[in-house]
Each structure stands twice: as C-alpha cells, then as structure tokens.
C-alpha cells in the first residue's frame, strides 16, 4: 500500500518543505544548527533582570532580536515571526502574505507581567483604593489598549495570521512542554484528512521573566548549577539536577507530498507519524511503570508504520531532570528493547536549554536537519548514569546516515506526544 504519495494506511504522505528557528544559539536554522553540531551552548547568566538571591540565575534567553522592553508576548511573537518567515521563504510557498493553509501555533500563557500590573495600578496614584479594586477602577477609567495583547490568548495567532495570510481560523495550542509536537500532529492530521494541502506549524516561548523562573524553581524543576552555565544542562547524566529554562521558536511548513511535488518544492523530510497518550497518574510526574510514555511511543510507531528496530536515532525530550530522563529511558527501553543500546540518542536541550512550549517545534527542526545532513548533534556535559544504559552521543557530533528519527515530547499534565520523521521517500 505504501508509496511516495500514500502511506501504509493509504493516507496522503506529509512532508516538510520549510524550516525556521530561533534559539539561544542564534537566529536562523543554519546558525543554530552549525553551533549545535559544534557543541556550543546557549546557556548563560540571565541579564534581563536582577537575579540576586534567586536559586537559579541562568537560562537560555534569546537576546538577538530587537525587542525592548521585554515582554513574553512581544518576544514570543517576534521569534515566531522570524522562524515562520524563514520557513516560508525556504519552502517558497504561496504568494507574499498569503500562505495556502492554516496556522497552528503553540503559545505560552497570556498573562500580565509585573510592569503591566504596575502601569495599571499607578495610572491614578491618588486613588484611595488598593489591590484589585484599584486595578479595576483604573482599568475602567482608561482603555489600556496597548496592554490587551498580553492577556489575549488569541493575540499571537491573530498577529501571525495577519502577517502571513494563513487560511481560516488559526489554532492556538497548549499541551505544556509537548505543545510544539502537538502543532505538527494537528497539521499532519489536517493534511491526511484532505482538509488542506499545507499547514504552518509554529511553537514559540519567551517566558524567562522573574515570575516564570520562580514558579519552576518552586517546583524544584530547575538546575541550580549556576557557576558554570554551559555545564548546567546535562541530560542523562548521573549528576543531572534539573532543566534550564530557555526561549526559542521553531516553524515548519508541512505539505502533502503530492502538493509539494506538483509545485517542484524541495522535500526536506517526511512526517511519518505521530502518537499521543495521556497520563492519569500525577500533575507533574509520570506513571512509575511508564505506561503513558510507552503508549505514546508505541502509538507513534504504529501510526508511522515503523518497527522499533527501524528507529535509527532518537531526538530525546531529555530535559536533564532526574525524573524525565529516567522515565524516558525506561519507556524507550520498553518499546525498543535491546535495539535501544545500539540507537544513538541526544538531547538538544544540553545546548539550547528547555524551550518549553516551543521544544517540540525546535527539536523537530533539528531532527529534520539531522536527517538531511547526516550529522548527529552531541549531548553536552554527558557523565554516564549507570542506571540509564543509552548510546548518548557525547560532547562531539557524530557522522551517521540516519533514515528514521524518533522525537519525543513530554509535558506537565500528563502530555506525551512523539513524532517519527524520515528522509525523502526514495
């Protein structure tokens, strides 16, 4: 049944024709990739705000875009725009500001930051009221139209839709740290059911602000290895002590194989399949037997029509938390068996940090580049954990032809989404 045009279940084959990226390593997929395979780290001391007294003082912030003053909305939007523009321009799809398909974007929480609340609070300083009564009274007196975008969950999608002229109602998605992968899944499904020939899938997250950092810190999720920032993110290592917050955006243009071929587009890779399984065990931890992660990986392979031994390389979720890396290894082992020991694996997060909502998008771009370039990016700071028997690609990238990549994304709230990518069909 499988052909170039239809997959093993008779569905349209879905391909990637454009990539765009912004990470703590730089702006542009080529810049990020060359620094990634060279083993550079984007993790550094936070300069955006004073970190004095905080347990964690490092992050993979994006400082290369001209967004001032910082806000999560403005930087997330600027990064998404940059990545999408790059992806669309590489794909050479559509006319200017007229993308022939829907926008599916994973965005961070929409919320006021302290400077915004302060601006509303101080708008009428002689007000006898305090607290929210005063905020609301001031909000009634003025429109504060310039602040609305920060609290509208539809605002990033709205901005991107106007900018790129995507079709229909844009989708804003959140599946926590699996969100980026979910955008790819939604695009894949829409093309498979014939709803569209193309989709613009984006994940973006720029939430390194004081409250964002403190909240993850209070959950004991962050590394506190502040003294040598580039060594803090150490996925699958014995000494791993938490993830490093980071910012980034990844964009992918998905198309049906037929549509891409018909317009002579260069095919960068194939989205072979996606799968997900929700976990009912706990809000931040996965089932001790890994059932949900295992279920997500199995469903993904089944959807992709790929046997476990056909996985050539794993782009791990690999957050560098004790919990994730243990459960991810256990789950991979359960599905891949001994094949896991012979399957190279790396975590991009050792260099770019954990881009949270955007991680699945950022890592999808790196996965496609891995297939295309035949280079496996390294995992920095690897100090083997005897309990996690894996073929981690340590310190230096490795040349290897890979045909099939498994990319994992797991998030709070029991979200588990995996994607299998492969090279262009022969």
């Amino acid at each position, binding site marked *: 049944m499988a052909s170039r045009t239809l997959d093993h279940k008779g569905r349209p084959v879905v391909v990637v024709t454009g990539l765009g990226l912004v990470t703590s390593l730089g702006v542009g997929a080529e810049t990020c990739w060359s620094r990634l395979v060279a083993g550079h780290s984007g993790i550094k001391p936070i300069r955006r705000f*004073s970190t*004095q*007294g905080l347990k964690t003082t490092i992050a993979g912030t994006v400082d290369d875009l001209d967004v001032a003053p910082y806000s999560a909305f403005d930087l997330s939007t600027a990064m998404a725009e940059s990545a999408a523009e790059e992806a669309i321009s590489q794909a050479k799809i559509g006319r200017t500001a007229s993308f022939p398909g829907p926008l599916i974007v994973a*965005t961070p*929480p*929409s*919320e*006021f930051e*302290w400077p915004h*609340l*302060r601006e509303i609070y101080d708008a009428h300083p002689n007000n006898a009221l305090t*607290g*929210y009564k005063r*905020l*609301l009274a001031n*909000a*009634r007196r003025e*429109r*504060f*139209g310039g602040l*609305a975008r920060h609290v*509208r*969950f*539809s605002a990033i999608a*709205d901005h991107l839709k*106007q900018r790129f002229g995507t079709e*229909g*109602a*844009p*989708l*804003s*998605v*959140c599946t*926590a740290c699996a969100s980026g992968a*979910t955008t790819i899944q*939604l695009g894949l*499904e*829409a093309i498979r*059911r*014939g*709803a569209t020939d193309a989709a613009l899938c984006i994940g973006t997250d720029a939430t390194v602000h*004081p*409250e964002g950092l*403190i*909240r993850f810190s*209070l*959950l004991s999720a962050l590394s506190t290895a502040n003294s040598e920032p580039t060594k803090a993110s150490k996925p699958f290592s014995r000494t791993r002590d938490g993830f490093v917050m980071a910012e980034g955006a990844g964009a992918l243009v998905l198309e049906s194989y037929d549509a891409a071929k018909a317009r002579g587009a260069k095919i960068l890779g194939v989205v072979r399949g996606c799968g*997900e*399984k*929700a*976990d*009912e065990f*706990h*809000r931040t931890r996965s089932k001790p037997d890994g059932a*949900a992660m295992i*279920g997500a990986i199995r469903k993904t392979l089944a959807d992709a029509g790929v046997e476990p031994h056909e996985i050539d390389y794993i782009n791990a979720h690999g957050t560098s938390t004790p919990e994730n890396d243990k459960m991810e290894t256990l789950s991979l082992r359960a599905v891949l068996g001994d094949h896991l020991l012979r399957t190279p694996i790396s975590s991009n997060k050792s260099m770019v940090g954990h881009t949270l909502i955007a991680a699945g998008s950022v890592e999808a771009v790196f996965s496609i580049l891995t297939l295309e370039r035949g280079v496996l990016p390294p995992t920095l700071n690897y100090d083997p954990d005897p309990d996690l028997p894996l073929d981690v690609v340590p310190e230096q990238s490795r040349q290897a032809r890979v045909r099939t990549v498994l990319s994992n994304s797991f998030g*709070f*709230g*029991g*979200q588990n989404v995996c994607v299998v990518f492969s090279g262009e069909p022969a």
Partner: protein
Amino acid sequence: MTLKTSSNEVLITGVGLASSLGADAEAHLARLFSGAPVTPAVDEARYAPYPVHPFAEVDFSREIPKKSDQRQMELWQRIGVYAAGLALSDAGIARNPELLDRTDLVVAAGSGERDTKVDCEVLEKLGPRDDAALLAKEVLPSALRPTLFLAQLSNMLAGNISIVHNVTGSSRTFMGEEMAGLAALENAHRRIAAGQAGLILVGGALNAEREDLLLGYEIGHNLWRGSHCPVWDREDGGGFVPGSIGAFVVLESKAHADARKAKPYGRLVAVETGHAQRERGAIVRTLADLLGRMRGLLPDGELPTLSGASGKRPATCEERVFLTQLASQNLNPIVRAYGSLLGHGVEAQFPAGIALAALALKSGRLPPPGGPESIEQPLSAPPQRVLVTGVGHWRGEGLALVEAVA
C-alpha cells in the same frame, strides 16, 4: 479548513452542563426547557459595577470524590473537571477503563486563577520602589504555592480530567478565548468525521468569579457594567456578563455509539469556523460564508437558533444583522441568546451552546424568549435541528448545526 470527504456521522451521546442555573443537565432541562419563564441568577453586588453569574451550589464530590484532588484545583478546574465527569457519566463511559483508555480529550481553556492576594501584596510592597523584579523575588518565593502555578496552566484542566476521570486516549487543549471553544468542537468533529477518532470528550469551563479574570477583560472595556439585561439590549459599547459555566459533551462516531448501544441526543452535523479581522461588516460576511457551507442541510422556514452572543458591540449587533438577513434566504431564525440567561462563558460558551442544543432536541423546546420580540420569537413546533452561533467578543466566528436523530 473545509472538509472534502466527510463520512462518519458524529453523534452527541453525553452532556455535562453546570452553571449558575443548575448543577447538571437535568437541572437545566427543568429551568430552561420546561416552558416556564427563566430568571437568570446574577450577582450584581459582589464585583460591582460588574454583574456576574455565580456558579450554582454544587457538590463537587459527586464527580471529584477525592478531597486531595479538589485541593489541587481552584474553582476553574473544579468546574471543568466536574462538568467533564457529568458528560462521561451521562454517556455511560465513566468508570469504564476500556473505553476511557481510548477516549480522546479536547479542551478549550484560558488560564487558571492567579493568587490575587499575592498580587496585591507585591503591588503594595512595590509602592515606593522601581525594581519590580527585585520585589517580586522577595515576595513571591515565600507567597506563591507551587500547586497554584499548576492551577494557572491552560492545559492543567485537561490534566486534571485525565487524573480524576482516567481519560487517557489523548489530550489537547486549544486556547484563544471564544476561539478556543470553536476550535475544540471543530477539531473533535473533523477527527470523528474523518475516522481519525471514534470517541471524544470535548468542552471547556469558566470561573466568572475572579477579579484577575475581570481585570483581563476590562482592559479594552469588554465587560457590561450595571444592571443585568439581555445581550441584545446592551447599548453603547455593550459588554459581556461573565458566567461560571462548565460544559462538556461526548461526541462519538455512529458506528462506535451503535456498537455499545449508546443513546444519542442528536447528530452534530457541521461545525464551521472563521476569523475575521473585524472591519465593519466583516462578521456579517464571515457568518454568511459559514452558513453557506451548511445551507444545503437546512430546510426553508423556522430555524431554531441558540446564539452565543456575548453582548459586546459591535460583534453582537453584527450577529443580529446576520440573523435578520437570513430571511432573504427563506430562513426564519427563532433565536435564543443563551448568554442572556447563563452569562458569557468565553472559552466554554460554544461548548455550552452545543450542550444546550442537545437538551433542546431532547426536550422538544427552546428556552423561553428573553430578549426583544423582534428577534426572540415564539417557536411553533419542536425543533428538529438547532443552529448554534459563536461570535467572540474580539475574534472568532463559528456556526454549528445539531440535528435530531430520526
């Protein structure tokens, strides 16, 4: 996104609805669909000048038995998890591990409650000082509870539904105010129609009784102030009256429902969504375009319509123009704006409309007319189909058609 090849029928086999008017679907049938006049439950004093529809007295333990689970949630998540449980029970899926294991979950969500006490504390202490970061840092680490952060995250309503009800097939959360509800229903409908899913729990929730939520919507002046009145009558800029609502439905392919002998409320025939930039007249044009895609499914004559209009102008005025203009297509919409009765549920508004449409088919009635006679006319016969409208207060337009199963 338009579906090219739709094959599988999509049935509504479970309804979970809780609001200011009652704790479950039965209560809503009694309050809204008995033919008796309806008095909305409105609290005009607590957050004056903003009226809100407070959540009914509800025993959350009915659907969230563990106190430890309830403690992990603020009201938004409790309302949603409770309503999701009602829908699962109604559909006969609750506590059926084999079915729950492959029930897909689609949630429309905003964000959960902030700790407004902590916010106030920070703002007070910030008073004479500029360095927001420094002070936020001094106050927050001791005042913020880690669990509260989890209560704020958009996808944690879905996460808690998985935990409390063991719904684990898959889990997706859409955001974007009213567009979240439109996207959730559209995605669920499309997947079942295309055979990509067989059984989906879809819906959303809103806790209206929150100062942080009121602040977010007062930016841009989206809220109605003063005495409650029907959405059509809200003059000047209009505005919405937030309503605490939890609304979930179970959607199921006909084959799946038949196989387990599930009794449907009706058939979700179509869900169409749009996104106008809202220059003058854009909403009218967008809704007309969406209706055009389903016009072939609508016989001429009376068209029972549950309008999700928010009361914010000009959106609500334009929706009214659209409905009035349907006369030129030989359609006579018999409109009920349920936002006048339950309040506006934002993300939960469209799911609530679908749930009410199912109840309308079951009861053979619409809620009694509550607005101006020119638009809310009496219905002459039991509805065989119900059009549901969803027009966001800022963005997002959608229409759904729910039909009786012969």
